[in-house]
């Protein structure tokens, strides 16, 4: 056939075929999507530190293992309170002339998703220790250590942020471990990663493929069903550890803790919901409960798990008792 034997016609046809398809499945969708979406009104722009932290995040290839996208499927609901939408990315532009826009959505989840890590894991102390060597706080972790973001000092200067590193992880280095400004910037970026709340009138997209069990009792609040051990593992364990012993000098133990086993339930609930910084020998605890939007049932499940684990023998609480305190706390604030 003449067409097949004419290289100009053949290759021009192939090129046009490919280019036109490309136009319709990539270029036009990419442009129109950006035109039709704008940044959410509640979105907080990155601070100068967080922006530098993002550059470090990019430079060290963290996206190789950490996604930043909450898919609209139920299994992703642990990574954020709602599925990601186009508007979440709309504010991202090229960082500079040399590099592309870094949405950092990622394609591999060897480590956890980071879309909402600022809410899930806001503690500065934890993040620094974890960056120095993740295995200090999560012994099964396979994340690389980033000791080059830290320096070793014998004499501290004003404003130095020290990190409590156990002897075994110091690799024979002496002195105090002090976070360089890069470490603080990286943590600032991680802390800035929070899902933005949708404006009041807009419709929240739903998570699909609900688990059968969830679908069954999605009506009403899950109270009796809340799994204290799972909630503990997902929200508390990173600092207080699976054995409840915490990390000396950084995170207090819960095993044998007077707050856990004692009678002051309102203090206990208050700490879970709003954090705690009353003891100088430990790092500050962020308000995990408020950030994660714990229900009374979930708080009760965590309390009951902590009171019955690691040799603790505290009194079990009911959802109603916790609810009462939550209402009190809300009115007090």
């Amino acid at each position, binding site marked *: 056939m003449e067409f097949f*034997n004419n*290289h100009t016609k053949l290759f021009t046809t192939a090129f046009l075929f490919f280019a036109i398809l490309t136009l319709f499945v990539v270029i036009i969708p990419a442009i129109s999507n950006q035109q039709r979406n704008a940044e959410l009104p509640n979105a907080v722009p990155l601070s100068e530190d967080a922006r530098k932290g993002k550059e470090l995040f990019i430079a060290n290839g963290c996206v190789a293992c950490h*996604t930043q996208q909450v*898919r609209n499927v139920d299994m992703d609901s642990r990574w954020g309170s709602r599925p990601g939408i*186009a508007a979440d990315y709309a504010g991202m532009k*090229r960082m500079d002339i040399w590099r592309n826009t870094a949405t950092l959505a990622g394609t591999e989840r060897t480590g956890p998703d980071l879309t909402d890590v600022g809410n899930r894991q806001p503690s500065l102390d934890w993040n620094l220790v974890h960056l120095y060597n993740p295995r200090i706080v999560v012994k099964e972790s396979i994340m690389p250590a980033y000791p080059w973001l830290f320096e070793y000092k014998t004499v501290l200067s004003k404003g130095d942020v020290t990190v409590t590193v156990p002897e075994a992880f110091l690799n024979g280095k002496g002195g105090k471990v002090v976070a360089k400004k890069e470490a603080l910037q990286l943590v600032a970026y991680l802390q800035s990663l929070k899902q933005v709340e949708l404006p009041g009138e807009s419709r929240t997209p739903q998570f699909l493929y609900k*688990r059968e069990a969830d679908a069954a009792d999605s009506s009403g609040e899950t109270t009796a069903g809340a799994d204290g051990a799972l909630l503990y593992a997902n929200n508390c364990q990173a600092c207080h550890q699976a054995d409840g012993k915490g990390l000396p000098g950084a995170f207090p133990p819960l095993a044998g803790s007077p707050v856990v086993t004692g009678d002051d339930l309102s203090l206990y609930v208050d700490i879970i919901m709003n954090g705690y910084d009353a003891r100088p020998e430990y790092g500050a605890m962020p308000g995990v409960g408020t950030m994660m939007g714990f229900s009374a049932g979930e708080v009760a499940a965590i309390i009951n798990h902590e009171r019955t684990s690691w040799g603790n023998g505290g009194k079990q609480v009911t959802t109603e008792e916790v609810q009462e305190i939550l209402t009190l706390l809300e009115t007090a604030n």
Partner: protein
Amino acid sequence: MTLYDKANLSLVGVTLQAPNIYSLQLGWSELAMGALVVMLLVLLGVLLSLYRRVAAIRNSIQGGFDNRIRRQLSQLNGRQLDTVLQHKKQGGQKRGTLAASGKAVLLMMALLAGLPAWAQPDGAVSGIAWGSAGIVITLVLILIPVLCGLVLMVVKIRRTLTRYQRRQHSALADEFAQYLDGLTKKEELDQLTSRKSALDYQLTNTELAGDGDVHDRRGLVASASSDLNLPIAAPKKRAVRRPNIDSNLAKLVLWYIGTSAFWLLFGTTVGQYLGIKFLAPDADQLSWLSFGRLRPVHTNAVFWGWASLGMLGLGYYIVPRVSNTSIANLRHGWLSLILINATVVLGTVSLMAGINNGGGEYREYIWPVMLPFAVALVLTLTNFLKTIARRKTTEIYISNWYMISAIIFTIVIALVAYLPFWQNGLGEIIVQGYYMHQGVGMWFMLFTLGIVYYFLPQQLNKPIYSYSLGILAFWTQILFYTLIGTHHFIFSAIPWWLQTVAIVGSAGMAIPVVAGTTNFLMTFKGAWYKVKDSYTLPFFLAGIIFYFTGSMQGTAEAFRYTNLIWHFTDFTVAHSHLTMYGIISFLLWGSIYAVVPRLTGQEPPQLTVGAHFWFSLIGLMFYTVPLMYGSSLRGLMWMDGKPFIDSVVLMAPYWLWRAIGGTLMWLSHLLFAYNLYKMYSTDKQSNIVEEALEKLTGNDAQVTQTK
């Protein structure tokens, strides 16, 4: 029943030691049934063997005296006949008569007939829970001595039968000896003599060749060996000599392949180290070697270094060949080679230094680093197009369709991916999906298919099965492959319709894949025997099989449900190795082993080529299969809402398997490099010949001068 449980039932056959996985649960009743079936089978086998033994005995004594004698006479061989005839000559004495005792062995038959009476009366009692553990254990305990008794009985019976058979044989032998002794008639003896001479006949082994000297008058024998030792591996055919290639072009092709092999070794060394880091995350704590920086070093080095350079090198060989002309511009070929190598060197260093493009996979090199690569592509495209324009054939061979289009499309892809106009916000993700998959499918796959369309027919020495199938695959590949980019972001914020288009495109990919695979496999038709005689064809065959399985796996992964289980897990990593390694690398190796011997005149050692093939194939299986299995479990665990860190612990054994497989793959690359070295280094022996010839002609020249 949750999905997790379902999977545990279906993932049978592997013992899992990691926590949070349930091993295969077999009920007691299934076990008991299994045991019973095995016992019955054993019993059946024993009965069959006994029956055959009895039948053999009956056979040997049946049919009356005449029949027996005739049968035994016909079984005599030359030596035995000799003995008989010698005996006759010496006038052997008469022996005493022995009564032939031809008793049938009815006793045994009776015994066998009685056997069924001992069979277990199965399920006669109702109301007992046969499946319950206690009952099953009791039954097994009863069955063990019963079975032992049965075995013992069978042994005894066999021994009795053997003894009886021996006695029977001895009687028959007596009978036969007596008959032979009684032979006196001349005709009978003559008959035996003539039978003996017939049996003694032997060929002289010169019937066909005669006694003359051997001459290879047409030069058909390529390699005659007087080495009679048994070979360790089956010897393969040597490469057929072809008309000489322009030595300047040959040099260019060899440099492309040589540098690509370097990047293969470098890239997979990095990859292997990354695999080890999954098991030993504190192997080093240096910023330049940290995981996030090294991972793109690995992927980009094997993509733009190994596969791209290898493909282009083969392209520089194929395009002029099938156009039946010389390459348009050799200098641009060299320039492209330098530019691409520069890209990979600069890219590697900049990635390790922490300079990258901001996250998209395979798009980690920043644009100034990728620019030389793009220039090289443009140079190569114009070079190839000019060569095709001055072709001496009417048609454009299908290899050129694939390879030229691959370069055109890749230039389009690079422009779409690196131009900034549509890359803000979600646009970047849409472009990323397109880029990463078109890079794989339109650059590596399309180009490599073009290579296969040339080298497979050449290595099989027959034309491609169907030109039309190749054309169908070509156009459908463009139609469907272009659409599938966003299937890397199913359930993301990308518009739902675009995700659906990608899924439909992925399903449509079945058409070009099936067409291509059929075409290649049908080309093998009638020439399958050549596979065992060739050291290149196994690479092609493996590559073609992976082309089908790997590509169809990609289709399967694109569906929404499978995305739930597999997306974000190492399943994707396993898939990309099945394809980029199983398809692209295997096909490139086959082609390289096919082309280099005809450029240098040196063949690789066949043993190390074989070792290369098997190490990489077995390594790839060890790498991918456990990784796919573990990743499926990991995905199910995520769906089940288990703590994330548990899924990390779960993966540890599968990451270990990955490292083991990776080691084998890496070793195979060392062998590949060694083979290349053997093919590249000019053989000393042929140098001696050349040198001697030069000396001879030199002498002649001197002689004529002095005259």
